[in-house]
């Protein structure tokens, strides 16, 4: 998934909840449609969204690189192992007509899925994503899911990632200065060399956690109860229109499945 790409666009300005719901609906729609017309509809929908987001397409392709292997495996297995009417046979392998169809379909589904979810992470800051998730999951509170706490943990984790990375770098340099070797040797040796890096890192992370908890309590933090929001999420006209567009797209996909 791509990191947030800063620019001004309609998609960027949408409420994170809309984008979350839209991404989920889009993924579901990919599995609902099973005709070529359906895929064309999905492709057009995705292309329009990418165009609206003003994010260069190559950023989404970056996300694809991570799944190239999975994609290949899926395609190869589907291609050769689906029973049906033989199309081409060479050596012991047979490509069937059905196999070809399923393989192409899976490849299209997976790549659309990745591009679609990259579009969400590229246009939404991690912060507002957490906010959106907290708000969307809110009903789960009634079945005792600690929604607020999970969201708080996520945002604290996001804040401390760069700090801990910097710290790792510092410890690593300190250990190298004293003759530690992180580079050479086989995998096991390398893993063992990580121990003098991880131990101080964990100790410092725990110390930071302790300090942070104290600082939060000192600032009257007592969980999600009685809490107000500095930046409450609010739906605007654009968000309503977005939901409408989404509804049209999704019901279109369902209709295609039923009537085609």
């Amino acid at each position, binding site marked *: 998934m791509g990191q947030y790409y800063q620019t001004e666009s309609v998609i960027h300005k949408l409420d994170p909840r809309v984008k979350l719901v839209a991404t989920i609906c889009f993924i579901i729609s990919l599995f609902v449609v099973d005709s070529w017309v359906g895929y064309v509809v999905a492709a057009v929908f995705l292309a329009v969204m990418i165009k609206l987001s003003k994010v260069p397409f190559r950023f989404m392709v970056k996300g694809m690189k991570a799944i190239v292997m999975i994609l290949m495996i899926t395609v190869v297995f589907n291609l050769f192992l689906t029973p049906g009417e033989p199309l081409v046979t060479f050596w012991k392998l047979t490509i069937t007509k059905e196999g070809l169809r399923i393989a192409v379909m899976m490849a299209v589904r997976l790549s659309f899925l990745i591009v679609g979810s990259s579009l969400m992470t590229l246009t939404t800051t991690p912060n507002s994503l957490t906010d959106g998730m907290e708000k969307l999951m809110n009903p789960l509170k009634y079945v005792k899911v600690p929604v607020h706490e999970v969201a708080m943990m996520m945002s604290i984790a*996001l804040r401390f990632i760069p700090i801990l990375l910097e710290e790792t770098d510092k410890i690593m340099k300190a250990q190298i200065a004293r003759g530690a070797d992180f580079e050479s040797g086989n995998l096991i040796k390398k893993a063992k060399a990580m121990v003098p890096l991880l131990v101080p890192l964990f100790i410092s992370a725990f110390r930071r956690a302790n300090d942070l908890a104290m600082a939060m309590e000192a*600032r009257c933090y007592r969980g999600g109860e009685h809490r107000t929001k*500095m930046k409450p999420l609010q739906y605007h006209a654009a968000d309503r229109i977005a939901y409408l567009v989404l509804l049209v797209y999704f019901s279109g996909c369902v209709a295609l499945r039923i009537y085609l």
Partner: protein
Amino acid sequence: MGIIKTDKLTFEYIRRDEEGNVEGINRAVDEVDLDVKQGEFIAILGHNGSGKSTLAKHINAILYPTEGTVWVDGMDTQDEKHLWDVRREAGMVFQNPDNQIIGQVVEEDVGFGPENMGVPTKEIWERVEESLKAVGMYEYRKHSPNKLSGGQKQRVSIAGVIAMHPKCIILDEPTAMLDPNGRKEVIRAVRALNDVEGITVVLITHYMEEIIHADMVCVMDQGQIAMEGTPREIFSRVEELQELRLDVPQVTLLAYELKQRGVNLPDGILTIEELVAALTGLKGA
């Protein structure tokens, strides 16, 4: 009764061995009586392990006394009913700037305290704006805290506390991890709060230069208040300070040494300007 008052405040850390048996008891704070009036600037001085941070954590109800009582604005900190009121009225700034900033954007961090208190959204924004302006960090409101210098981070932490509209602020060695420039920035911001906004300040430090402007100074040693008085009174007792392993500012030390050699100088010189004035005055006489 002042805004902060302690009566025979005692706190003991219990040391345990690996099986959890009591190995020994450390008395970190030992029968401390303190009375801070509204609007005062108090400095608490002491070397490492003198109990000054432990004392500070009592004022914010993070630690509770083993014996004795602490009152903040007339509320007993051990009274659970008032826990959140005590924490709101006595804000606390800690040593490590990285470990007390919660938000990923400066303004969000400053808004964290008011959010916890249930302040309405519109008022949160007003409070964030005024407190960032008070510490001179308003232009940085959209920045990520990770990109700021130590002094700036510490000023953001202070803004985060004043956004809660406390009556007093306790700063627990806020400058210990900063470079000299950052230290000056933070102390300037703290003094402005005290002078302009009239917020009571309790500054805990081991840098002598920072306490020159305090109304009162308490020097702690082994959990007890060893010396108490105005900065001038404290600095005139150079030998006692050195016995307590504290560094006297160079100017004060120089004036003291000169005086020992028979130069006629007043006691407790605090700044270079004062020393210059005293010396030129001598020349004229």
